């Protein structure tokens, strides 16, 4: 993975001129405005709500803009037990999100199926969508979810964004 530096700026030292790399700047923009989408399916959603509430205050980390539309959100927080009946809906909503998009599997059920070794429960949401961060717990504490979001921020800040753009294959010609 390409090493990119943290975007840093001190007005007193550098005046109005900023030297940085495009990668670092883009990642800085992205990681400080993660708009999470709550995919609340079970009791983990209660902890997710607590995370969003005043006591834990996720706006400290620039990710408080919860959007309930997949079109407007960057990070899907799968909070709860994913049943097979729900799995296809989760997949469809993930597909509707715009790139770049991230997924946090919150809690034991979303990560592995948890205690539900059952005919009705998907054994981990990573079987249908790519997961960036797994959160242990049943349900995890809000601090654990905040930690996961900060891990996701670290992950985003290390992404080789520009070289990823170059790698994109051209769109197929319209017929």
């Amino acid at each position: 993975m390409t090493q990119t530096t943290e975007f840093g700026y001190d007005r007193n030292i550098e005046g109005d001129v900023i030297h940085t790399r495009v990668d670092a700047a883009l990642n800085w923009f992205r990681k400080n405005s993660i708009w999470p989408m709550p995919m609340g399916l079970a009791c983990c959603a209660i902890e997710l709500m607590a995370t969003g509430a005043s006591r834990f205050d996720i706006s400290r980390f620039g990710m408080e803009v919860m959007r309930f539309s997949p079109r407007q959100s960057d990070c899907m927080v799968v909070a709860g037990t994913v049943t097979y009946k729900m799995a296809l809906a989760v997949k469809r909503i993930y597909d509707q999100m715009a790139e770049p998009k991230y997924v946090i599997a919150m809690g034991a059920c979303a990560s592995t199926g948890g205690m539900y070794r059952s005919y009705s429960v998907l054994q981990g949401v990573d079987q249908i969508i790519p997961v960036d961060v797994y959160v242990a717990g049943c349900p995890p504490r809000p601090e654990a979810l905040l930690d996961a979001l900060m891990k996701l921020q670290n992950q985003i800040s290390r992404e080789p964004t520009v070289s990823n753009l170059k790698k994109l294959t051209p769109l197929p010609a319209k017929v």
Partner: protein
Amino acid sequence: MNATDYANKLREKFGELISAPAEFRGEITLNVADAERIVEVCAFAKKELGFDFLADVSSIDNYGEDPRWTIVYELYGIGNGTYLRLKTSVSEEKSKLPTVTSVWRTADWHEREIYDMMGVRFRGHPDLRRIIMWEGYPYFPLRKDFPLGGKPTDLPDIAFTKTAPIEGGPFVTAPGGKDAIEREPRVRMAEDKSGK
């Protein structure tokens, strides 16, 4: 009047069809001998005896016995404040009985759930579709011969299931064994009598 009095009224009306009331911890249970006549019994209980609230309909899989299915109706009268339980049996070959949706409309979803989980059908039901699993799922997962971990299914672009990994399970206990090893056979191997 208490539940026993209502039970006796039912017996006066239907005679041999209704068994003697069995009492357990203050709850009265009646057996209805012929599942085909459950609607008349229920209609009488509702209209004449005031059992205007159907609290629940549930089903039992007496796997390995005949008749295999027991359908249980939990009746409650809001006016008289009394519970009454009706039970009726259905054989596996038949797996069908008349619906009571004409008596209590709430029976609609209860009967759909029984159909979905056990595969017992209700004749005359207005909308007998699956309610919890999706349309096209081929099994009835609450049957005793269905493995807890499930069976793989695939309905392309609609839904799929895989077998859940159960390390050494499902853990079952059987009463009457002389030591823990006998009482807990641990793994129950599923017999393949898929409820298609």
